[in-house]
């Protein structure tokens, strides 16, 4: 597990209704680590009930800005608490902890052209990509879809960076990305990056595959919040503990609350670090990750602790 960096909130600004930008600086005022475009950090904060909340947020600022990191948080009404806490309870000066940056959504440096597609708050890593592509002098286009003009967070920043390379789509006005037209005529060596809601990502990936784009040219990032489910029990064979997993708590969180250290990193079902062997399952494993293969899921022998659950009574893990 990566050692956490203590930070404090230097500034909070409302970007559009429901989206806040937080500028985070190191508590000891030392420079923050540099990072690559597409990186995220996991922010840890303690709620009023002393429960720990951990959520991943893309770093959207300029990596040359070493004195602070900038993240944008959308307030989710159905949030399990993390984003609501950040909006409602955290003020300038508050102390939090963040992980070191981790990049699961990097730019393909050998790409000859880059096509960036952002939906809603998915614009945050895309913004970082655009900034880096400008710096590297590489050809690119950004296609940014949002619900309404009031919801077009950071469109002005993107415009300043990308100019005519930015294309906007406001769904309230009926504007939609024509995915087929966009993907059908790109030169060889183009890479596609998409970040946003699940359906957007699924749709773009499917359209690209249907047009023959190979997997190595399609990159996506989706911050999965661990979906809730029904309660179940997890028996940790090696540590001998039995843990009750509540409907709103992820399996990983329940294990951590019981004081057991489980391998983990992105907490969003993408990086593979929390993969754990399933010894027994009374019930059906609900896989919510994007890491395991279909065969691995079907085997019933593996589970990603951070987002997946059991629909049933009890699971026994090799932990």
């Amino acid at each position, binding site marked *: 597990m990566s050692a956490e960096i203590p930070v404090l909130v230097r500034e909070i600004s409302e970007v559009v209704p429901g989206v806040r930008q937080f500028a985070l600086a190191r508590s000891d005022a030392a420079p923050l680590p540099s990072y690559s475009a597409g990186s995220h950090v996991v922010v840890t904060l303690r709620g009023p009930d002393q429960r720990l909340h951990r959520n991943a947020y893309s770093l959207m600022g300029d990596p040359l800005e070493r004195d602070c990191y900038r993240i944008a948080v959308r307030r989710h009404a159905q949030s399990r608490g993390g984003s609501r806490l950040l909006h409602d309870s955290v003020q300038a000066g508050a102390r939090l902890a963040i992980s070191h940056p981790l990049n699961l959504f990097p730019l393909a440096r050998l790409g000859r052209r880059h096509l960036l597609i952002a939906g809603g708050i998915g614009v945050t890593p895309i913004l970082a990509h655009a900034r880096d592509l400008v710096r590297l002098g590489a050809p690119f286009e950004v296609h940014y879809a949002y619900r309404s003009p009031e919801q077009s967070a950071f469109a002005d920043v993107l415009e300043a960076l990308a100019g005519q390379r930015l294309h906007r789509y406001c769904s309230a006005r009926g504007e939609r990305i024509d995915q087929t037209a966009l993907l059908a005529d790109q030169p060889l*060596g183009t890479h596609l990056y998409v970040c946003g809601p699940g359906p957007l990502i699924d749709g773009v990936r499917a359209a690209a595959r249907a047009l*023959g*784009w*190979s*997997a190595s040219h399609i990159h996506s990032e989706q911050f999965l919040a661990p979906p809730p489910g029904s309660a179940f029990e997890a028996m940790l064979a090696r540590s001998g503990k039995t843990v009750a997993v509540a409907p709103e708590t992820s399996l990983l969180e329940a294990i951590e609350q019981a004081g057991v250290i489980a391998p983990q990193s992105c907490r969003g079902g993408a990086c593979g670090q929390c993969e754990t062997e399933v010894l027994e399952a009374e019930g059906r494993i609900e896989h919510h990750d994007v890491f395991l293969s279909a065969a691995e899921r079907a085997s019933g022998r593996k589970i990603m602790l951070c987002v997946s659950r059991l629909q049933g009574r009890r699971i026994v893990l090799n932990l």
Partner: protein
Amino acid sequence: MTLSIIRSKPSYAPLAWDAEGRTHLLAAHGDGGEALLRLLAAPPRAPIVVRYASDPLDASDRSALLALAAPDYQGFDTIAALLDDLRVDLDGGRMGMRLYLAGSERFVWTASRMAAGFGLCADEIRREHCGSPARAVYCVHCKTIAPEVRTNVVTCPGCTRPLMVRDHYSARLAAYMGFQVDAELPGTVPAIESPYA
């Protein structure tokens, strides 16, 4: 220097269509024409482009057969001319294309490197080594490449050292590594065999 089994020697499978590709570019030299003919016996319903350089030493003329089998066919007299054309094809190519290469190892990897320069990744390129097992050998001492080596030991055309031909392969150089076989005890050169003939 070790001569044991090496995992950096490329391995090949017979060419097969990638059904997920939207268009297909086939390029081959010499005996590689056989692999293309096999493919074209059952083509997918998609645009297919064939580029072929015949080997003047070949007995059979595959170019005639390929011209019949492929709607978009062009033949070339030399590998250099074929590669020049491939460069143009790749420059104008669109995402969704798959590239199929067949021929000598040196041809296949030289063409691969060109394709990589246009941003193609490994999952867009398929390769089959057809015909001569002769090897291109890079002399690690003087950096000269001997293009067609059939023996296990070869005299370097650049520095005249006797080079042992290893299985360690560089896709970038499209050549196997050669090092002076008798460096430790000059004159002790092993029996010359022709495993790549």
